[in-house]
């Protein structure tokens, strides 16, 4: 007969506040097979876990039910506690009486009754648990990093320094990401490229980092430790092995196009690099603007190239990499013009977004760092910065706060005063959020020393009137409407996930929230992991991040990968499918429903009477099976079962939850 222990947690008042913990404990004691029932204030605490360990040893328990929070929170904690006390960790079940019970039901009597049912179901499930041992699968000690921004670069460097190979996939022709577009960075005002380019060089030089530029991840198969990733590289039309980076081709190329890197403010050549410090410092041909590729004319670059590196016939390259872990660091984009009709963005050239302002500020930018109006190149004397452009605006834009705009707008105002001493910066804001180290002081300096005029209120309309950009807003502190005839308007646009991030999420099978930011495994406790084992997050892919956070994320994710690669084999959760060969009729209709092709046919030889007979049966490859259970439903003769979630267990849970306390009248 089973010897089951039930431990009911009060979780301070989180559970005890609504559920009569003692009543649940007593009810549990009455269930056949339960030999120990106890409640404690904090089961997951050190003393709580010791209570469990002692009870296991003293009462020789072979099954454990912990009635507390969601398994997503502490299933691991209690399973390892049981393991230390000598009980197989898979003989432990959680009864979720907090998130699913005490936190969501106001009526104490109903909450207690429901908690008792949930505990009874968990006991029935434990009663039918079997001791399980994790299966071991081989591990490829090579990592894939998607995105070559500061986050991607930092995680690649950390993993490579830890001694493992890394493939860094970047969709542009150079690494550096968003940070490369910035002029200075807050709060220290040190120049972005000064602190970024050495790191870019280090990445390019690192023997263990393999760069895949102009590339995207198009397919991901397999599972943690054994991913097969298909990478598609767009043609650059320049053979980078031969090219020595002399950039003569860029000089002589006649075709110019608006530079996406400069947010359309500056021009770049059809063949060339986005910015001088690009790494790898190799040119790329933008096919849709190349006269040769479009109309078969010109071709100067091919003629003058000293090393004949230009190759117009270059095709798209597709290849596969075997990797054990994936770090997603795709960074962010900013909200487009479609959201700011009332600010005239996209209609008036002198209404620009914050990234464009960064380019104006940047010495390698289109105006070599001089702040000029895109319309007539004049130096603006009155600049209006509009904070929360599209952020904190559920109706028209994004509901969330984009976190970094308060800081970079203060930086913009400061830089503006340094470059245009007699200019006046106005900043329409709602609340200033400057929570980082030295952040608040930085904003105060912008106000006190650099004369930025902060106006608390939103802007209702921006329109052009005889050469000036009129900004209609309000100053709620002064209680007046305000109209400013400005020369330049800068929108601190909302941060959004990188375009294409949602499609990549589906390729990686990682859930994303409604805005498209990837979901962490747990928002507080596992911020750099995802629910998909082996896939980690770094930087703004999971939400608006500033540079220090992105770098911290990146090193965190890299540490997780190093932990994963620290042992030679990977332990796979034993909650996988299993075939009862005595029942299996060999129809193999389970094979088509398995997403991981983990089921194969096996020739079973068995003795019937005196003869040896053979018949086909299904068999499960423990390494591939992820335990989804679809096969167990496709199996009509009940031969296929799923360890940890067997048919018997689920039927028993149904029975326990439906126990007819009162039959219908």
């Amino acid at each position, binding site marked *: 007969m089973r010897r089951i222990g039930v431990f009911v947690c009060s979780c301070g008042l989180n559970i005890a506040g609504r559920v009569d913990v003692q009543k649940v404990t007593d009810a549990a004691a009455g269930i056949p097979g339960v030999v120990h029932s106890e409640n404690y204030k904090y089961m997951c605490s050190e003393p709580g876990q010791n209570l469990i360990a002692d009870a296991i040893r003293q009462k020789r328990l072979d099954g454990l039910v912990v009635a507390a929070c969601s398994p997503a929170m502490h299933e691991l904690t209690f399973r390892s506690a049981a393991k230390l006390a000598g009980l197989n960790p898979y003989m432990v079940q959680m009864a979720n009486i907090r998130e699913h019970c005490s936190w969501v039901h106001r009526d104490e009597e109903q909450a207690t009754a429901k908690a008792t049912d949930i505990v009874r179901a968990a006991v029935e499930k434990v009663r039918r648990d079997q001791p399980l041992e994790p299966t071991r699968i081989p591990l490829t000690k090579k990592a894939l990093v998607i995105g070559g921004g500061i986050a991607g670069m930092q995680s690649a460097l950390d993993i490579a320094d830890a001694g493992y190979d890394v493939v860094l996939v970047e969709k542009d022709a150079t690494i550096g990401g968003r940070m490369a577009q910035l002029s200075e960075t807050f709060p220290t005002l040190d120049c972005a490229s000064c602190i970024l380019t050495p790191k870019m060089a280090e990445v390019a030089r690192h023997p263990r980092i393999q760069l895949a530029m102009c590339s995207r991840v198009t397919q991901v198969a397999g599972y943690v430790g054994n991913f097969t990733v298909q990478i598609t590289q767009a043609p650059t039309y320049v053979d980078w092995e031969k090219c020595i980076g002399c950039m003569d081709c860029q000089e002589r190329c006649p075709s110019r196009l608006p530079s996406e890197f400069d947010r359309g403010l500056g021009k770049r050549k059809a063949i060339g690099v986005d910015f001088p410090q690009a790494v790898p410092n190799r040119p790329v041909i933008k096919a849709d603007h190349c006269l040769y590729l479009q109309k078969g004319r010109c071709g100067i670059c091919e003629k003058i190239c000293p090393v004949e590196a230009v190759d117009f016939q270059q095709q798209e390259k597709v290849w596969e990499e075997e990797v054990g872990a994936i770090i997603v660091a795709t960074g962010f984009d900013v909200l487009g013009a479609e959201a700011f*009709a009332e600010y005239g963005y996209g209609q008036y050239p002198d209404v620009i977004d914050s990234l464009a302002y960064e380019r104006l500020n940047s010495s390698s930018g289109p105006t070599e760092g001089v702040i000029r109006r895109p319309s007539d190149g004049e130096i603006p004397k009155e600049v209006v910065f509009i904070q929360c452009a599209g952020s904190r605006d559920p109706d028209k834009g994004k509901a969330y706060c984009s976190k970094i705009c308060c800081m970079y707008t203060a930086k913009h105002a400061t830089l503006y005063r340094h470059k245009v001493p007699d200019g006046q910066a106005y900043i329409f804001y709602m609340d200033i959020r400057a929570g980082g180290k030295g952040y608040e002081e930085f904003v105060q300096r912008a106000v006190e020393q650099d004369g930025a005029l902060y106006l608390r209120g939103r802007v209702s*309309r921006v*329109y052009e*009137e005889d050469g000036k950009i009129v900004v209609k807003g309000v100053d709620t502190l002064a209680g007046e409407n305000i109209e400013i005839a400005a020369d330049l308007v800068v929108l601190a646009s909302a941060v959004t996930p990188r375009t294409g991030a949602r499609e990549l999420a589906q390729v990686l099978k990682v859930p994303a929230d409604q805005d498209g930011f990837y979901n962490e495994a747990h928002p507080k406790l596992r911020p750099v992991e995802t629910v998909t084992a082996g896939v980690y997050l770094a930087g703004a892919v999971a939400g608006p991040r500033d540079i220090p956070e992105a770098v911290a994320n990146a090193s965190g994710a890299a540490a997780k990968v190093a932990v994963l690669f620290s042992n030679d084999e990977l332990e796979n959760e034993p909650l996988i499918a299993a075939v009862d060969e005595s029942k299996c009729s060999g129809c193999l209709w389970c094979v088509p429903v398995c997403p991981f092709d983990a089921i194969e046919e096996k020739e079973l030889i068995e003795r019937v009477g005196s003869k040896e007979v053979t018949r086909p049966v299904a068999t499960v490859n423990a390494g591939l099976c992820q335990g989804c259970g679809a096969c167990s439903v496709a199996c009509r003769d009940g031969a296929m079962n799923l360890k940890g979630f067997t048919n018997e267990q689920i039927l028993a849970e149904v029975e326990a939850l439906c126990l007819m306390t009162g039959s219908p009248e």
Partner: protein
Amino acid sequence: MTARESARCLGISLEELEDWQCCGAVFPLATDAIINLASPFRTLASAHQAGADLVTLCSGCLNVLRRTNKLVAADAEIRKKLEDFVEMKYAGERKVFHLLEVLRDETGFDQLQKKVVHPLDDVTVAPYYGCLLLRPAEDMAFDHPDKPVIMGEFLRALGAKPVSYPFQTECCGSYLSVSSVDSTRQAASAVLKSAQAAGAQWLVTSCPTCLYNLELAAESLDEPPRLVYFTQLLAHALGVDAYLEENGALAKNVMPEVN
């Protein structure tokens, strides 16, 4: 009247709802101000009883009626209360249109253009939408909340030359004219000046309140754009106003001469 005749001339029959009353003028901002919804509900219910969808010429009415219609269809509790109070059954089956929408979707502006008898020989006209027609964008779903095009197309169909200006979707001050006249004068004159700056000879609106406020502000401006209601333009272009004038239905030809 001009609207009904113009519609008839375009093959659309518009019957006036008998015993209609005010639409409630303002969609209540408080969610539990159900009593304010009684009159728009009655209007919708009686239209339903008459067995036809509802067409209005005024953006204010459209705003109130369309949002009430949506609320009644969505919220069973409010519907129940209104049905008991007004003693009429209605659950949002009907649709509410602005005449401009009917012209655009039913007849089609290209057909309208064919029916035009007196084209407005490209007078520059500033379309003025105001706010109630367009916002809240989700409920009204009339046109793009900040860059509307419907009136521009309407005017082009009548042969006029529409001109866009920043204040075409700015508020005219609406019923503030009751409590503080000078604030409406200030708001409305900003609209007029902006239209003037864009070179508009006329300014067309589709809401009596806006027309009232704009006229109020026009007094204190030197030669502001001429104010005209969109149905007048329609009637004039279709030659319907001349017909009405002959048999005395129309007091005077309100069409301003082109200058």
